[in-house]
């Protein structure tokens, strides 16, 4: 079960995952934290296909993330 982490961009719609790491710069990291996306949060991917943006369900609200951002968010199933 080691190395089960993957970028959020690779999660298929319908799956629920937990954030383990946000590998972004200070600005984006804080921005995402402001909206409640921090390590330990559970979220569900609603829609989206690479290389387009993805829609996620985060703490009861919907958020759209660009593909690049989703690449920087590491999650586990």
């Amino acid at each position, binding site marked *: 079960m080691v190395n089960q982490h993957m970028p959020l961009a690779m999660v298929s719609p319908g799956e629920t995952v937990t954030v383990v790491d946000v590998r972004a710069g200070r*600005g984006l990291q*804080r*921005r995402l934290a*402001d*909206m*409640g996306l921090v390590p330990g949060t559970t979220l569900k991917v609603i829609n989206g296909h690479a290389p387009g943006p993805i829609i996620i369900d985060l*703490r*009861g*609200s919907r958020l759209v993330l660009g593909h690049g951002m989703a690449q920087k968010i590491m999650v586990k199933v």
Partner: protein
Amino acid sequence: MAREITIALAGNPNSGKSTVFNNLTGARQHVGNWPGVTVEKKEGRYHYHGYRVKVVDLPGVYSLTAYSLDEVVARNFIVEGKPEVVVDIVDASNLERNLYLTVQLIELETNLVIALNMFDLAKSRGYQIDVSRLSELLGAPLVPMVATRKEGNEELLREIVNVFEGNTTKKKIKLFYGSELEEHLTELEALISRDEELSHQFPPRWLAIKLLEQDEEVLQKLGVSNE
């Protein structure tokens, strides 16, 4: 003689801020821009029991960091415009995320009234909110509302005046950031408090937090370099 009050409406995007704004001011609105930036500024007025209230609708933000222009505008108005009362419109069905902004408004030592909007939606989702306990914890009056049906409007108007007149006991809430950070915060806070001009301009603890965060706007204003 009518007494003038300036209030600001703050809240997350989609928390019903504009609906509350429209309920309060009706058609007496004016739309312009915040000076120097292309962020819409909405202002309105209403009269209530001999008070003339000017309402400033702040941009919807998740936080008061310096991430976007909207956030800077909202923050500057609160820090520099010093509105007498800040109404924080909170989506009651999404408390966890919304209260993050509330905490920042508390740290800015604003005179807060918290509007718990979409109270019906929160109920239908099965949430039970202990309003008086939450109000106690946040140190500000809480008004459950359903802005789309104008429920809670009267109570909100009343609480705004109550807070303005100092009829509600404003409790100073201090969030504890862990002993490691607190040590530095206390140190910075003490330094800031000694500077009369600075501590008049900003709440010292808030400024200490922003300095530790290395908030760009704040650093720039104080003329501190990032290195």
